[in-house]
């Protein structure tokens, strides 16, 4: 019984981090139609900056929002100086659809090299700001700790704020419209370029939150070639695809589903099957539900 509860708790906690990463990927996709492979690098860089903020302010909880702001600025800068130019110059022919996506792969390498140049290759540690030891009920230790609870609350709050922004504000309207049909939006007077940069910035902040929360919960260390962040990207992608790439709610559900499936495989089958399960799930969803579990009906029609 406790094993079942614990597995569910592990699934929900790791799922909520995948959900944050998925949200970052969905945000860039929704506002620019670019699948952003550099998201892992952006999250890693933001977490390195978060590490510096922790050293300055001696508080993880001050460093977290600062890292999110830094992540937003880095992402906005990438869009302003790099992506905007690229989209403009490679806007025609068959290359137009793939050039920005391939470019984000290049960007991922650049960011990792940049980190290694400035911080070196040694591991840096981010300690858990609060206890990561599970609460106990009688003689049993639950898989939910104060840190994991905080991660869950932070993830849910961020999802709530972003969903409100998209669904209830004028700015959200501009974001949705620009992604849907940039030319029509331009005709209607929407500053599409500015809106796109903002989409990148929001994604940068969400990715920074994912990185900052995952690190103390996971290995606790940062390195330029962190496998943890590569996995975060891969699982974020899988979660985003399960959710249909279009919707924030889909990203959240996708993250939770992925987290739970992986946790159950880990506990009840075998730890060595975790990665393969993630990829099999991705392929199955792509074949069976190519529009994800919340298929945006007619979302591609303008």
């Amino acid at each position, binding site marked *: 019984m406790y094993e079942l509860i614990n597995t569910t708790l592990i699934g929900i906690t790791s799922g909520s981090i995948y959900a944050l990463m998925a949200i970052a990927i969905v945000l860039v996709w929704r506002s620019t139609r670019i699948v952003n492979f550099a998201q892992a690098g952006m999250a890693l860089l933001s977490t390195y900056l978060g590490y510096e903020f922790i050293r300055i302010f001696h508080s993880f909880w001050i460093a977290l929002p600062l890292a999110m702001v830094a992540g937003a600025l880095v992402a906005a800068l990438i869009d302003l100086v790099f992506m905007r130019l690229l989209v403009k110059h490679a806007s025609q022919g068959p290359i137009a659809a793939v050039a920005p996506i391939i470019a984000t792969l290049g960007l991922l390498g650049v960011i990792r090299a940049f980190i290694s140049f400035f911080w070196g290759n040694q591991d840096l540690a981010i300690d858990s700001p609060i206890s990561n030891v599970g609460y106990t009920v009688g003689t049993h230790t639950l898989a939910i700790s104060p840190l994991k609870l905080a991660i869950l609350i932070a993830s849910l709050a961020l999802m709530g704020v972003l969903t409100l922004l998209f669904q209830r504000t004028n700015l959200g309207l501009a974001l949705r419209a620009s992604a849907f049909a940039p030319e029509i939006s331009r005709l209607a007077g929407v500053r599409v370029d500015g809106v796109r940069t903002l989409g990148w*910035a929001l994604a940068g902040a969400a990715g920074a939150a994912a990185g900052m929360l995952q690190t103390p919960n996971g290995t606790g260390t940062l390195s330029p070639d962190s496998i943890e962040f590569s996995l975060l990207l891969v699982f974020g992608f899988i979660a985003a695809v399960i959710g249909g790439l279009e919707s924030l709610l889909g990203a959240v559900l996708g993250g939770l589903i992925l987290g739970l499936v992986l946790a159950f495989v880990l506990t009840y089958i075998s730890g060595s099957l975790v990665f393969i399960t993630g990829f099999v799930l991705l392929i199955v969803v792509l074949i069976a539900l190519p529009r994800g579990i919340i298929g945006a009906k007619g979302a591609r029609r303008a």
Partner: protein
Amino acid sequence: MSTNQSLLAVKGLSISFGGLRALNDVHLEIKQGEVVGLIGPNGAGKTTAFNALCGLVTPDAGEFFLDGTSHAWPQTDTLVKLGIARTLQGVGLFSDLTVLENVMIGAQRFSSTGLISAALGRNTKDEAQLKERAIAALEKVYATGIAHRRADTLSYPDTKRVSIARALVCEPKILMLDEPAGGLGAQDIEWMNSLIRNLTATMSVLIVEHHMDVVMSVCDRLYVLNFGEVISSGSAETVRRDPAVIAAYLGTGA
């Protein structure tokens, strides 16, 4: 402003696509309160001319005049600020948004908050004001009753109304209508005609249209394009009698 001064003028507009001349030295002029029609056989360059005016296509040559003064060729997203709004042939509503939201997108230029401040805090007053403007625009096309329906649930004539409301909401001086009567039945065409005539009280209208009945009954002046060149211009009567126009349309059935 005198009524004779042109509100918008285009001189020497030329565009080619990979060696193919789509438009050659086209001159257009629209005066205050005028309804101007752009007609011509298929492939004559009407849509290209429209797209060029909207900055969707960059011209090889051409001068742009607003209120008689020379102006840089417009960019698509600054068009609305210049007082020019356009509807699209394919209507182009955002299918997963409501009618009201669709129209609100056209009112973005009245949003006083910048992107950054809008991201940090919602400005309810600003949004309420945009909503009011959108409802007022829907009233003009008698579509307030469908304000809360999703755009993809509308009948075709209703999508046309909404797309016009989205163009009207930014209070343009010049409204560009791309085939407003296309796909409409007789009754809706009648309605569209009277709407266009009523609009001239506050704006000028530029129309691309295939329906000759519509063109002849609402337009004050016509430009006839053929093979990318203006072959005739003037009142409906003048143009209709022009041998060059008759020759261009011969066999097209229009």
